[in-house]
């Protein structure tokens, strides 16, 4: 595979940085946009891109905190964190960056024209939002995206309400796969139930896989939250989903 740092037009025409990994094969390949989790474009998110490239997908991870750089990924993420989520990652900016990343993938000579998105943690919520706001996508995977509903954020010490994105799902046109841990608090089992119900009532194409003995971030191999058995099965489900929607 070929791995490199690339630049492409993001939200508002901003030139942003992305981490690109692509298989070197003759056949046209689908693209995948990876939305990194809140800690930033860390080594694990880069590993995700390489693993997807190994599976046959040209993958790019837009650096959502690029506008705070340049610098070490953790320093840039720390600078973004102090601004707060709404300022560091406003929804319209992230959607613009995801749309830019998808358009960039389609310009590559090996593209088969199909592009999916997958996001983790806050990126999971953003992947759900992209399924509504970026209709040119062909598939979306929400991995444990929290703060879907406008309710008190359990991780907020001041008990502030997260703004939520559930009001957007009425416009969802992109098929959605959801991966969740049943020990997670955000999203909780009850919140995932509610999301499933809303999508079902609205007749939106979606499939959820939910895992016992797994909490938040159970794919993340360099954190104690990693659950090997559940992660292996989850990745298998994702590959099957992308195989179905992106070829």
């Amino acid at each position: 595979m070929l791995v490199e740092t690339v630049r492409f037009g993001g939200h508002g025409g901003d030139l942003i940085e992305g981490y690109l990994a692509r298989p070197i094969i003759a056949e046209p390949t689908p693209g995948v946009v990876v939305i990194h989790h809140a800690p930033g474009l860390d080594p694990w998110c880069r590993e995700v891109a390489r693993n997807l490239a190994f599976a046959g997908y040209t993958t790019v991870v837009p650096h959502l905190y690029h506008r705070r750089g340049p610098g070490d990924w953790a320093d840039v993420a720390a600078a973004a964190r102090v601004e707060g989520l709404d300022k560091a990652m406003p929804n319209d900016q992230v959607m613009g960056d995801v749309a830019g990343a998808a358009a960039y993938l389609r310009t590559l000579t090996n593209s088969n024209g199909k592009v999916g998105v997958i996001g983790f943690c806050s990126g999971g919520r953003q992947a759900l939002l992209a399924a509504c706001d970026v209709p040119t996508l062909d598939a979306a995977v929400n991995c444990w995206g929290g703060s879907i509903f406008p309710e008190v954020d359990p991780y907020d010490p001041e008990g502030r309400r997260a703004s939520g994105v559930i009001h957007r799902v009425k416009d969802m046109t992109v098929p959605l796969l959801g991966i969740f841990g049943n020990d997670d608090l955000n999203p909780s089992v009850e919140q995932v139930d509610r999301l499933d119900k809303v999508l079902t009532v609205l007749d939106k194409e979606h499939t959820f896989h939910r895992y016992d003995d797994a909490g938040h971030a159970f794919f993340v191999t360099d954190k104690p939250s990693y659950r090997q058995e559940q992660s292996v099965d989850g990745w298998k489900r994702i590959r099957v989903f992308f195989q179905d929607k992106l070829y």
Partner: protein
Amino acid sequence: MCTWTSEQIEIAGQGRGVSDWIHVSNANISYDHPAIAPYEHALLIDFVDPAQGVGARIAVELDVTSAHALMRALQTTLATPQAMLDYDTAMTKQTLSG
């Protein structure tokens, strides 16, 4: 005067060093997902100087029990007579200048 007071605590976490002393103008404190420390959540303390770029950062990520131990040690240290005297003096100056 030399106070020779110190609090020593055992902690668990990760720290990010820099090669030399740097000016710091802000402290950013949050309890969130750490970048490196092996916990789902950690107390994140960044001493930074935004004017010098994002790399001007001295960071620690502590597990929650270490964070509480640190807080108690800070309170104990700042309750010593010299620290209290210096604080009262600083607050008086601040009040007079304000």
